[in-house]
């Protein structure tokens, strides 16, 4: 069907006319829209701006309950407790000083605190509630609520606050939470608005800080109607927040408690690793502190005391402390030598008590020397000369490489603060660090864990675990998050010749059970828990030639902070290792006398899952151990376990 030119013209004319009419209608509609926009945004903008700023509906955040932290058996080691507090709003209070004076009759407050409070209230906006006091007793709280008519502007509130039921046992590993400071906020990009709530607490250090994200949870919100003064009239709707994730750690609260008590007042650290899966079952640094004090806001006197204490209670020695490992490092040197093929397990060196290298004399700890020494004996008696000779053959670079394979000089990633990498020194390291060539003397010092070598107690425990298993045991602290069990990786084989590993372990066995073993007194006699270990005593000062001429002074005669560090690493049972332990006692003196018994006791507690039978101790030790136990205030066994034992 063909359209004529006339029809096309007619159609166009009609459409043009109608489009024009449409256009007029559309223009009218759009003009109306434009005029309405103009009226709202230009003529009535002020009214809307006021409505917007003083919107009578406010969104208030509901802080989420912080996630719990549990030990491996489900015991709560960081929880939340009800906290009663009181806030004051200037707008409603009228005469602040009168109200504060009345409050002081209920809540104890000295003059300075009262003055500070009044300044704080005057400084803040009139409608912002200011915290007057928290952690009130129920009595104080209820009496404030009762006297509400006489206390205008005062609001009693209850909320949750962090608490650490095991107080000092976990102080370093868990860390603590505290109020959010401006400095904290400045470090966070786009901070969660909940952080700005006056009572909100943030993980400051340790696991609380490192696992802040899962622990924090999600804030809920309430829509409330407020009057012009900002006071809540009623709640309109409520969206509950989400509690932070429950973190189950690998630690055992009872063992941790035992370890803390066993370390006592020493400046010391102990780490226990389950070698089968890398679980850190105890990690204790001593002395501890009460993290609850930090949550509540520590007083300046308490804080000063912690800061000035020469045993540094605030430092986490388990992962932050880097110590010369001393003779505990000898397994590394030995394995480096065996793996490099420069010696075999039967190779012997002669120890006359010292060696002369490059014009310097390096002494063995035994002045008279050990005579002819093979690999096992070198560990059993901790002969230094054996390692001096070995170090010259194997070279520092291979020792450093073996140290790193054993977990020293590498950072172990745990949710804890300020984890040190330690130092596994080699030629390149010294050049980079000191711009100096590596000297033979450096190798000799390093071979017995002195000189530049530094390791943390955690690294020493990892080393012991790796020697015990021949596998690349990786330590971990988190067992499950919100019930989701973290998978344990299949540890890679270290690729060390099993014969060489057996030699090192045999040496460690001889240390405990050999007739000349340096730690024989600290052995375990129960055959099923037979223990292997290595002592270490590391110097913190240089012995001058003059001193040596006079005869080496015994540690007891030195001031505390110049005494040697006592170290010990061990694992058990010897045949099928389960736990590896490291203990470092700062300025403790000798490794065998001080560190080894502590490590043995903790190891036994772990193996027995509680206090072990006395029969596990050598005869001569039993009375001493019993007396020690009687002085301890140990955590009771969990009810479920007692029931199981009875059944």
């Amino acid at each position, binding site marked *: *069907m063909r359209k004529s030119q006339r029809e096309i013209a007619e159609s166009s004319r009609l459409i043009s006319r109608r*489009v024009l009419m449409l256009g007029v209608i559309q223009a009218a509609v759009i003009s109306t829209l434009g005029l309405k926009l103009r009226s709202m945004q230009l003529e009535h903008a002020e009214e809307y701006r006021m409505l917007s700023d003083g*919107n009578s509906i406010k969104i208030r955040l509901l802080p989420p309950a912080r996630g719990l932290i549990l030990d491996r058996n489900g015991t709560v080691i960081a929880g939340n407790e009800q906290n009663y507090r009181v806030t004051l709003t200037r707008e409603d209070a009228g005469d602040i000083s009168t109200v504060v004076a009345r409050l002081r009759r209920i809540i104890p407050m000295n003059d300075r605190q009262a003055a500070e409070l009044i300044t704080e209230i005057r400084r803040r906006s009139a409608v912002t509630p200011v915290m007057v006091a928290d952690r009130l007793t129920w009595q104080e709280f209820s009496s404030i609520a009762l006297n509400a008519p006489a206390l205008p502007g005062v609001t009693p509130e209850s909320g949750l606050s962090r608490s650490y039921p095991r107080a000092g046992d976990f102080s370093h590993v868990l860390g603590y939470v505290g109020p959010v400071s401006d400095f904290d906020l400045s470090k966070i990009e786009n901070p969660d608005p909940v952080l700005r709530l006056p009572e909100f607490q943030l993980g400051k250090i340790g696991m609380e800080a490192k696992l802040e994200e899962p622990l924090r949870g999600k804030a809920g919100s309430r829509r409330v109607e407020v009057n012009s003064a900002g006071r809540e009239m009623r709640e309109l709707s409520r969206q509950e927040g989400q509690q932070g994730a429950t973190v189950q750690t690998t630690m055992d609260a009872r063992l941790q408690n035992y370890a803390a008590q066993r370390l006592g007042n020493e400046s010391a650290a102990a780490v226990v690793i389950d070698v089968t899966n890398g679980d850190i079952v105890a990690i204790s640094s001593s002395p501890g502190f009460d993290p609850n004090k930090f949550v509540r806001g520590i007083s300046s006197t308490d804080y000063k005391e912690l800061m000035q204490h020469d045993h540094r209670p605030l430092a986490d020695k388990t992962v932050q402390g880097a110590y010369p490992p001393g003779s505990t490092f000898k397994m590394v040197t030995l394995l480096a030598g065996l793996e490099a093929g420069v010696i075999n397990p039967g190779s012997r060196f002669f120890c006359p008590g010292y060696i002369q290298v490059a014009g310097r004399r390096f002494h063995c700890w035994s002045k008279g020397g050990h005579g002819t020494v093979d690999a096992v004996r070198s560990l059993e008696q901790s002969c230094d000369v054996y390692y001096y000779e070995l170090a010259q053959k194997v070279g520092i670079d291979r020792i450093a490489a073996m140290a790193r394979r054993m977990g020293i000089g590498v950072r172990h990633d745990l949710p804890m603060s300020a984890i040190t990498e330690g130092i596994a020194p080699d030629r390149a390291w010294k050049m980079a660090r000191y711009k100096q060539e590596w000297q033979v003397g450096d190798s000799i010092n390093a071979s017995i864990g002195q000189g530049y070598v530094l390791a943390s107690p955690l690294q020493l425990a990892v080393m012991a675990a790796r020697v015990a298993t021949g596998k690349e045991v990786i330590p971990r602290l988190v067992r499950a998050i919100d019930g989701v069990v973290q998978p344990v990786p299949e540890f890679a084989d270290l690729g060390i010749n099993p014969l060489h590993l057996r030699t090192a372990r045999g040496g460690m066995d001889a240390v405990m059970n050999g007739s000349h073993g340096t730690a024989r007194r600290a052995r375990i006699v129960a055959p099923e828990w037979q223990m292997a270990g290595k002592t270490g005593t590391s110097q913190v000062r240089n012995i001058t030639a003059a001193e040596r001429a006079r005869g080496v002074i015994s540690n007891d005669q030195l001031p505390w902070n110049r005494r040697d560090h006592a170290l010990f690493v061990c694992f058990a049972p010897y045949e099928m290792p389960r736990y590896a332990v490291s203990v470092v006692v700062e300025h403790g003196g000798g490794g065998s006398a001080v560190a080894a018994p502590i490590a043995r006791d903790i190891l036994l507690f772990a193996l027995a899952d509680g206090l072990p039978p006395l029969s596990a101790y050598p005869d001569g030790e039993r009375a001493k151990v019993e007396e020690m136990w009687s002085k301890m205030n140990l955590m009771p066994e969990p009810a479920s376990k007692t029931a199981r034992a009875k059944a």
Partner: protein
Amino acid sequence: MSYLDYSVERVPTGWRKVLYLNWPLVFLVTAVSCIGFLMLYSVSGGDIDRWAMPQMERFVAGMAIMFGLAFVPIWFWRSIAVVAYVICVLLLVGVEVMGHVGMGAQRWLVLGPIRIQPSELTKIAFVMTLAAYYDWLPIEKVSRPLWVLIPVLLILTPTALVLMQPDLGTSIMLIAGGGIVMFAAGVSLWYFGAVIAIVVGLITAVMESRGTDWQLLHEYQFKRIDTFLDPGSDPLGAGYNIMQAQIALGSGGWSGRGFMQGTQSRLNFLPEKHTDFIFTSLAEEFGFVGAGTLLMLYVLILGFCLHSALTNRDRFASLMTIGIAGTFFLYFSINMATVMGMLPAKGSPLPLVSYGGTSLMILLMGFGILQSAHVHRPR
């Protein structure tokens, strides 16, 4: 006029078509969409992946479709108009039978990974059918009752199906869109007068039906009407959105609070801040300057469309253009009127700005057909 009647040899062919596109329109559409990305970024609080990025991806895809459609000769659309219409009606029936119920209404049809909203497709397809119908119908018959009844039925069939979903907003859009095409085609003004009289009567009847057994609307729809009539009556319930939207919009003033500084939308006073209420965020953050600019851009788009329609001597192409431009006009004016409190809230997006894949795609498809009409116009 069949496609043989076009001076085919004078219509650009192949890639040369690119030169004959309505480029100002392409730029205007892109400009408006960019305002949309900016606002989606802002209302998400700076989280680009939340809304802005997906919207940009869909925009790129939609632009590709638009250019693709622009290359398809306009006479192709006329020849498939009837088929497209039938498919859309079938899809609407499909929704009725097996559609996914979302937001209290059946609107989505899920076919494997694709979720389609047939009511959106219908908006284009039935404009196409009406345009084809009036292209075929001799002009002198346009206003004869029988020939008026046919397009009315063509409009009412999909409208009835959409109303059953139930989606009052889209039903009204369909009737208004169809009305615009009929109006442009030259149907006598008396008919329109009659329809307006009937509508007024119907509204009265609907309002009277409330609470009786033969209640004609859902209670939520009645509530919206109440709210519209007096938003202050229930500031925390249904009237909440409208009140908050007006406060946000008005508080913008001349130049606004600044990009990402909108308080109302930031504090989540507005639940649908990224879809139906995005205009309030624009108005709050960029003030009258920003809101007015967007309105001007819309007017320019409308202007270029109507100019293209006026200069196109092909009746089908011309009516098609008017129909699509008319639908576009309805979209943005209804949305703006809603957020400014001049119409009851009914959940309509701001075209090219609101977050939403289907709406953006359909609009860009519409612009593609419009471009095709422009490129292939008789010369």
